[in-house]
């Protein structure tokens, strides 16, 4: 990859941060879009950026990608300042906006060729790059099709291919999966996984929380222009105030199961779920450990078909951290 040397040079002399946002505030007329937003994204990480409508996600993305200038605070991308070093940043990022922004009269190849030339690549380089990005996005069979004739999912792939033309180190994707059918969404997530394997840093704003939870290494939750959480996804999902929760699934229905479970040493609460054979068991880890709990459950003689830690879902974390109402 052409930017690898630059990447190594940056990494060697810095802390490995791809995006560094500190005290960012932005106001549109009377509307305060961002109020002191701070977070960091590490290199080669897939970072989720989550928030309700009007939370300030798109504004933050536009500030990071240099389309907007920060009114106060600081944004650095690969140690470059977004105000003073715009061109250095633009060469190393790829931004995919939340709306389709394509020349629909062009064919897929012409569209990618145009952006390749606009980034200053020679003809032979363009041939290689276009071939690579078309293969990656699985669009090589449609390269001579007009963009206007493609489905929404295909257009999204072309849009992603365009973002990859300049071989960016950082991908900024604003709602890339919105409006896509389940198959197209899954395929898009596969492409993103592949890109992460290739060493790209991906900053993705999305509403599809279930997929983000599986995909992302870290996450920032923003609401009403303020950061509510920023850090590792694992930490967010396993955060508990008091006790870990385990999900137990039995092979048969039993009326006495809940009472038996409550009697186990260390169990503080047992909650039946909508499924009659499923129970959520709260457990005091200071008393004993997980293995001991499982051993105690087996001793009860009930037919156990499933036992796992019930991790907090990103939906739940999102609801807990953000406020009710639409802005």
């Amino acid at each position, binding site marked *: 990859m052409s930017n690898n040397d630059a990447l190594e040079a940056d990494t060697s002399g810095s802390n490995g941060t791809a995006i560094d946002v500190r005290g960012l505030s932005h106001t549109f007329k009377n509307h305060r879009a961002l109020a002191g937003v701070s977070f960091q994204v590490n290199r080669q990480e897939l970072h989720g950026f989550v928030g309700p409508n009007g939370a300030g996600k798109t504004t933050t993305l*536009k500030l990071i*990608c*240099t*389309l*907007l200038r920060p009114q106060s605070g600081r944004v650095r991308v690969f140690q470059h300042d977004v105000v003073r070093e715009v*061109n250095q940043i*633009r*060469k190393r*990022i790829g*931004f995919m*906006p939340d*709306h*389709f*922004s*394509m*020349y*629909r*009269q*062009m*064919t897929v*190849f*012409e569209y990618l*060729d*145009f*952006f*390749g*030339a*606009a*980034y200053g690549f020679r*003809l032979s380089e*363009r041939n290689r790059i276009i071939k690579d990005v078309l293969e990656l996005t699985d669009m090589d069979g449609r390269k*001579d099709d*007009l963009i*206007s*004739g493609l489905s929404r999912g295909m257009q999204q792939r072309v849009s992603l291919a*365009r973002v990859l033309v300049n071989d960016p180190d950082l991908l900024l994707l604003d709602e890339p999966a919105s409006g896509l059918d389940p198959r197209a969404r899954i395929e898009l997530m596969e492409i993103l996984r592949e890109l992460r394997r290739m060493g790209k840093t991906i900053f993705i704003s999305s509403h599809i929380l279930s997929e983000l939870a599986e995909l992302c290494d870290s996450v920032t939750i923003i609401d009403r222009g303020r950061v509510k959480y920023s850090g590792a996804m694992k930490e967010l999902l396993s955060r508990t105030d008091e006790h870990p929760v385990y999900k137990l699934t039995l092979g048969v229905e039993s009326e006495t199961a809940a009472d038996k479970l409550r009697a186990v040493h260390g169990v503080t609460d047992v909650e039946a779920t909508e499924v009659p054979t499923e129970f959520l068991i709260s457990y005091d880890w200071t008393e004993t450990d997980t293995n001991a709990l499982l051993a105690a459950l087996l001793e009860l003689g009930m037919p156990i078909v499933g036992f796992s830690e019930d991790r907090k879902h990103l939906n739940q974390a999102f609801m807990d951290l953000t406020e009710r109402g639409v802005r």
Partner: protein
Amino acid sequence: MLGGTLALLQHSLQLDGRLFRHHLYRLIFVAVLYLFVIIATGQSLLMGAPGQWMFVRIAQLDFWFISLAGISYFATAISEEKETESLGILRMAGISPSALLMGKSTSRMIVACLLLSLQFPFALLAITLGGVTTLQVFSVFLALLAYTAFVANLALFCSVITRRASSASVMMTVALGLFFFAPVLVRLLANSVGSSAVRFVRAVETVLAPQYETSAFSRLPEIMATGFAESPLSFQVLSNLAAAFVFFVFSRIVFDRVTRYHSVASTNRGVLMRPTGSLKILGPRRAWKSALIWKDFHFVTGGKPLLLLKSLLYGLVLALACVAGFTDGSSNPFISIALWSIWPVGLLLLIESTLMASRVFREEVQLNALSSLMLLPTGPARIAYAKVAGCLVALSPGLIALTAGVACIVIAIIIETDSQATVSASFGLFVAGVGVVASLAFILFFVHLVAYLSLVVKWGSIPMSIGISVVLVAFLCFMWPLAVFAFLGGAVGLHFMIGSRFRQLGMQ
């Protein structure tokens, strides 16, 4: 049907009340009328009956206003619903096609009529100032109202059968152009045949007579003539109202069939060749090193096929000018060649550059593609200039032809100077040269105005620019040396305003 019509009517009127732009138009309209009053008052000190002068100007202004509204405002009635893809929703809400057509066109007609009603007090003032009778005022307003109905319904028909507002505007411009100017051209051509074909000229006149009778353009001078005493319910009024009704009925008949399958997203690309076809050599092929110039040349201006076509057209104009110049028997054929080449070429170039100016920046805004361009590692100014350069490549046949015409003027001046020609002939050529400079200054201003308005208004940047330019030329024509500087200054000002707006839109 009435409920749906009233709902749409109410919505449109509410929207009209909220839009600052519409209030601004009214204000400009009143300001122009007020200026007419001031001029008429001044004229009353020098000549009698200034009321007639004022009322003639008001009537002319109204005529142009209605025509421009037809091209821009009326022509978007249905096509704007198609572009926002809200036509289906309106139909699902139980609004019938007739109610839709009525609701969308009637509200626009009411807004236009309200604007016309603004000037009624001024018209009454014209009667007081003298030279105009009450019958003439009444007849003029009736003629204009009938013309409004005709234009509104013709535009409604155009907006029903086209996919986009821009196409509807173009179709309406062509329709009005054919209605008003084609007969004039046919008459001119018929007369140029000469006295040997008197019967042919008479036949042409007979065929074109109904057009003359139905045209508001020819009816207005008749009404304003001294001693007018005809009925206000003229053939023009009745025929315009009948045509309005016919176009409404046509719109209703074709509405279902046409709108059902219309989708704004087109899957063809006009004259541009596909990379796989047999004529792929005329297609865009690979992007140039200057990618933006390549893109705008091919995808905004029509690319190689149109360049080829235009080269042939301008070549033909130059060839005809040469034939005219060398066969008219004058001692200095270059004067005739310049005359026969510069004005047609200039006019074609103006039309061409106007169309390009309306699209060059607007295209990116419409496609939401400006943010992708702005993220290229180059400044917005370079992006904008590269886009303009793409258009200049496409304008090259016209520019070359214009340069050839200007070169003919220079050669003509040299020949005149060498041959010790009369002072008046040399002065005439000097004035022609200044005229070319003034025209170029105006073209520069006009093209900038179109480009700026295309970034500010949703539709109708060209008609709006024509309207503004007509008013400006009307004011500045008495002091043309000042006009040259005013237009050049205006072009420079608009240039910076385009840059600022372009940057602003790129951030959205």
